[in-house]
């Protein structure tokens, strides 16, 4: 396109990078937070208590009792056992119209947890579809498509970045914070990009191929006559208990004791290794119970599943995964990281934040390079405003989400959507603020706000003290992380100083 390949790649890297960086910072930042999605849900739901509940039989009975009371006629139940990260019983059922309902129960008393929240699930949803699902836009999963495009562009940016950055090995560790403004930001961008480069490329690729059939439904259209359900049943076995061409429910018949079925399953999975049980046509003659193994101790996204007959616990089938499925399961697990324990999760979190920082430094490099030229182009002002909003504004929006979770009353009906609304409203406010204020003021003020929100978040509702008194280590680490983020934002606030070009922007505002 340009005179040489390198120049074309430099152009592509800058421009595709600019537009998609606005999206990618949010995707990467929420992705890093989403690594701890269970801990987020745990933190925003003070009703969850951290004691390890060993009595799995009791938990199953509690869940079953609730389901029998509230959804006796539903054709599909799911009962998720308490785990170390989420010490609650989750029950889910689907009604005739196909709408699902989820409730959380205390594993020992069966008491319902009133507080409805999307918790960590919101960060996952933002990360992979910017919270725009088929429910919001009838056209299709538009958010998913946008994120998919952003993923491809990030891969393109990584490749073009390698082409442009000639001295990739010689400058591997090069970071000169004292150099000229443009130079030191570029060093930071390079270091954050090149050192974790395997991570960036692998994480983006694994993210795209995890939901491969949603992005490219070619196989479904050609080989399954367009039926996604039929494909999922064969490929992912998830919908074995789906209601798709399920026989009509048989006559009522009591189901065998679920803890007994679970014990059979755990004899094969390992003690305490069942993640959840699904029940099709419960309390009917043709009831079927399927047990799914946990993911926490293996790098695999597809798990072992064993199906039993409901009335007598006879084993019907064990799902066998083909080699290709096992490989794809490994690939997906690299992205989802539900294994490995806390250390691995912290590691992914840190490198994910490094990826987000890489994108943010790239944005700063873009504007810094063009600010120093004589007569910065008029559209640069707009770019700077969007930069501030996409980086600092997004951090503020995430903090506001947590504030809204703390401050919204637990018993408010349809509560789950409220913090999400505040997330997007605050982001829009940050965009407006960034458009009205000169760039350096906008950066400073938004970082100051972000710092304040993070420092104060653990203390909302007096929860911080409770965490300390009950020595709830998960929640305490969460609070500590808030303070560390607050410190980082405060540091950035002090670092953003006025520069000689600030006066140029004032004149542009007046003109």
């Amino acid at each position, binding site marked *: 396109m340009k005179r040489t390949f390198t120049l074309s790649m430099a152009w592509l890297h800058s421009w595709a990078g600019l537009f998609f960086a606005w999206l990618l910072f949010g995707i990467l930042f929420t992705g890093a937070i989403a690594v701890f999605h269970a801990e987020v849900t745990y933190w925003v739901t003070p009703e969850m208590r951290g004691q390890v509940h060993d009595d799995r039989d009791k938990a199953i009975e509690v869940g079953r009792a609730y389901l029998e009371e509230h959804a006796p006629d539903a054709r599909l139940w799911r009962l998720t056992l308490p785990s170390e990260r989420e010490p609650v019983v989750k029950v889910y059922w689907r009604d005739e119209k196909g709408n699902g309902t989820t409730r959380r129960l205390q594993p020992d008393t069966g008491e319902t947890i009133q507080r409805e929240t999307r918790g960590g699930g919101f960060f996952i949803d933002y990360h992979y579809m910017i919270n725009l699902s088929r429910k919001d836009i009838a056209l299709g999963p538009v958010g998913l498509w946008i994120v998919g495009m952003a993923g491809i562009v990030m891969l393109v940016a990584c490749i073009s970045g390698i082409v442009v950055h000639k001295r990739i090995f*010689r400058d*591997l*560790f*090069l*970071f*000169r*914070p004292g150099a000229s403004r443009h130079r030191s930001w570029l060093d930071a961008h390079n*270091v*954050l990009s090149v*050192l*974790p480069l*395997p*991570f960036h490329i*692998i*994480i983006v690729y694994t993210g795209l191929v995890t939901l491969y059939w949603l992005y490219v439904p070619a196989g479904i259209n050609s080989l399954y006559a367009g039926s996604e359900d039929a494909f999922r049943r064969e490929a992912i076995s998830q919908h074995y208990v789906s209601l798709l061409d399920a026989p009509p429910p048989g006559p009522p018949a009591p189901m065998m004791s679920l803890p007994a079925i679970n014990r059979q399953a755990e004899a094969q999975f390992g003690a305490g290794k069942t993640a959840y049980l699904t029940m099709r046509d419960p309390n009917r003659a043709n009831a079927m119970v399927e047990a799914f193994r946990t993911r926490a101790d*293996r*790098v695999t996204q597809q798990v072992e599943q064993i199906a039993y007959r409901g009335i007598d616990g006879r084993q019907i089938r064990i799902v066998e995964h083909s080699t290709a499925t096992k490989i794809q399961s*490994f690939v997906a697990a*690299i992205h989802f990281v539900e*294994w*490995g324990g806390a*250390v*691995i999760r912290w*590691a*992914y979190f*840190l*490198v994910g934040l*490094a990826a987000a920082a890489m994108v943010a430094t790239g944005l700063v490099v873009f504007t810094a390079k063009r600010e120093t030229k004589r007569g910065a182009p008029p559209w640069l002002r707009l770019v700077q405003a969007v930069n501030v909003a996409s980086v600092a504004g997004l951090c503020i929006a995430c903090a506001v989400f947590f504030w809204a979770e703390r401050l919204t009353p637990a018993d408010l009906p349809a509560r789950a959507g409220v913090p999400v609304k505040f997330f997007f409203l605050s982001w829009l406010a940050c965009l407006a603020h960034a458009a009205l204020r000169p760039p350096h003021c906008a950066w400073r003020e938004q970082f100051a706000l972000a710092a304040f929100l993070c420092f104060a978040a653990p203390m909302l509702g007096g929860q911080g003290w409770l965490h300390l008194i009950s020595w709830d280590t998960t929640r305490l680490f969460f609070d500590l992380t808030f303070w560390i983020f607050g410190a980082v934002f405060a540091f950035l606030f002090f670092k953003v100083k006025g520069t000689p070009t600030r006066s140029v922007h004032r004149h542009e505002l007046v003109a």
Partner: protein
Amino acid sequence: MMLQLFSLYMTYTGLSSFALAMDKHHVQAFGERVGPGRTRWLRLSGSILLLMALGLWVWSLDVAMGLVSWLLWVLPIMGLIVAAGLAFVPRFTATVACRRP
């Protein structure tokens, strides 16, 4: 746990060896250029340290988890620490890696 911490430290020393094998960073840390023999030694010992770190890490977890996590995060995070160290406290970075001029 101790094995993993030691593996992290070895990754750090391995990576800083590679960094110090470059003139730019050797000057930052020690104030003098690196000679050819020293370059070879730093790179060789760096490779050995990295391989040992990988081995220890994989041994403390399992092959799949170990390989994936070492490649995707141990290496980048330790690399970022080395880069930051060389930028702000180069001499200290080298000392922690048990390297002297």
